[in-house]
């Protein structure tokens, strides 16, 4: 627009908290019972994350890649973009991240994960909190269960869950996969803060914890999954 710097945060928030909440509720309603499939996929990631099973290094990026593609298309593009035109630009970033993860699953050696230290267990704990705790935020905040956010269905838990996995990944590939999730955490934090939501800090905090995961085993003996 050439005058972006003249806009304040409140100018860029195009919708009310109620509309945003109902967006989640309508999306969940439209997809039910696909949430059960997403939950099963999340549990599969959680199972393989701390274990040195070779299948995990391909299955985890495969499931997460599909989740990114699906969330980018079904939530960002089909639904969120109806009230936030910026999502027209964000959804392709989700597709790019999803393709990157799928590429890792399909080619080379998959996503190598660090095993045999405390770090994978910390990562698995963070992933479990995201998978099982994120949906609880809605009722805890007084919002209906129908507006709960589940990994693989809504962007925030999908993104933070992916960061938890990347926190235990090794290899150069993970650096290419970090910017989009980190930028999303910043964006969603700002959006929720602008909407006056108390849980605005959850995704940025999750991102921060994921980024701190490498410190958990800095001084410990490490190994890479076969």
């Amino acid at each position, binding site marked *: *627009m*050439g*005058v972006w710097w*003249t806009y*304040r945060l*409140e*100018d860029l*928030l*195009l*919708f*009310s908290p*109620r*509309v945003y909440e*109902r*967006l989640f509720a*309508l999306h969940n309603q439209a997809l039910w019972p696909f949430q059960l499939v997403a939950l099963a996929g999340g549990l599969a990631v959680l199972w393989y994350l701390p274990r040195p099973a070779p299948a995990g290094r391909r299955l985890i990026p495969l499931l997460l890649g599909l989740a990114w593609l699906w969330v980018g298309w079904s939530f960002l593009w089909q*639904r969120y973009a*109806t*009230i*936030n*035109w910026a999502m027209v630009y964000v959804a392709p970033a989700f597709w790019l991240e999803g393709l990157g993860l799928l590429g890792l699953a399909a080619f080379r050696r998959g996503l190598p994960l660090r095993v045999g230290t405390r770090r994978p267990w910390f990562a698995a704990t963070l992933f479990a909190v995201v998978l099982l705790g994120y949906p609880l935020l809605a009722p805890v905040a007084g919002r209906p269960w129908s507006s709960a956010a589940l990994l693989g269905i809504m962007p925030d838990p999908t993104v933070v869950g992916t960061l938890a996995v990347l926190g235990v990944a090794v290899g150069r590939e993970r650096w290419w996969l970090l910017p989009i999730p980190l930028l999303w955490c910043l964006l969603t934090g700002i959006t929720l803060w602008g909407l006056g939501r108390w849980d605005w800090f959850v995704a940025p905090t999750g991102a921060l914890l994921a980024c701190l995961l490498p410190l958990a085993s800095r001084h410990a003996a490490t190994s890479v999954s076969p």
Partner: protein
Amino acid sequence: MPITRRMLLQGALAAAGAGLLPRWTHGATGAGLLTKPIPATGEALPAIGLGSWITFNVGNDPLLLRQCVAVMAAFFELGGGMIDSSPMYGSSQATIGHGLSQLGFPPTLFSAEKVWTGDPQDGPPQMAQTRAHWRVPRFDLLQVHNLVAWEAHLETLFAMKAAGRLRYVGITTSHGRRHRDVERIMAGRPIDFVQVTYNVLDREVEARILPLARERGIAVIANRPFRRKQLIRAVERHPLPPWVAETGAATWPQFLLTYIVSHPAVTCAIPATSRVDHLRENMGAARGPMPDAALRRRMAAYVEQL
């Protein structure tokens, strides 16, 4: 005793008889709503319009769409005219088009839209898309939103007006941005409307832009009349002044709106709401007696000291 429309109208007549009303020409719609003339043509425009920022951006939510249609229905039932939107406002344009279609395109509609793109070549297709959202053959008013690429867009809009595809041309700004540029355009281009932020606390435009609008015969649309609810939240815990009846207002939102539309240079204020009761309350601000300059100063001073 609740204040009724009749009491307010009687009060307005009594005030007019006592010479309390400002000297600007005004009238009333069939529904008793205060109207003010568009300087360029003299066409009467209801002084309270309907904004759509945030409130009408509801996507495809059927429940919220129904609520927006109810707001629009009440707006037209009460004599409303101007509805204002922008390509920037998410799905608001589509919501308005849906509402207008449901309501049979009320004849009192005064459609006010904007062009908002930094690429001048994108202007015409964006306006065509906007018109498709509204489902109207042409707009009454098209404005250059926040002065983005204003020189090129104004040329396009003037050409559209000359060709009979548009009735009025305008520019907008908000939050006090780029007032120098606004003044320059008002002084140098034959625009019909200018839209600025104006409310009881944001009064910067009173110094230069509003006088210039009167001098140049430019209609003024006041946006952010409540600072997006912030003003209402700030004042509603305080009592209305004991002399509130003199202002023609019965509630805080009416007090705030009355202050705006009683300025002689202001043609229309555009509060946005998603609630029918708030819409009715807002429209009530254009039914009472209008405060004169002295009372307006008193209103501003009262709010400032809260």
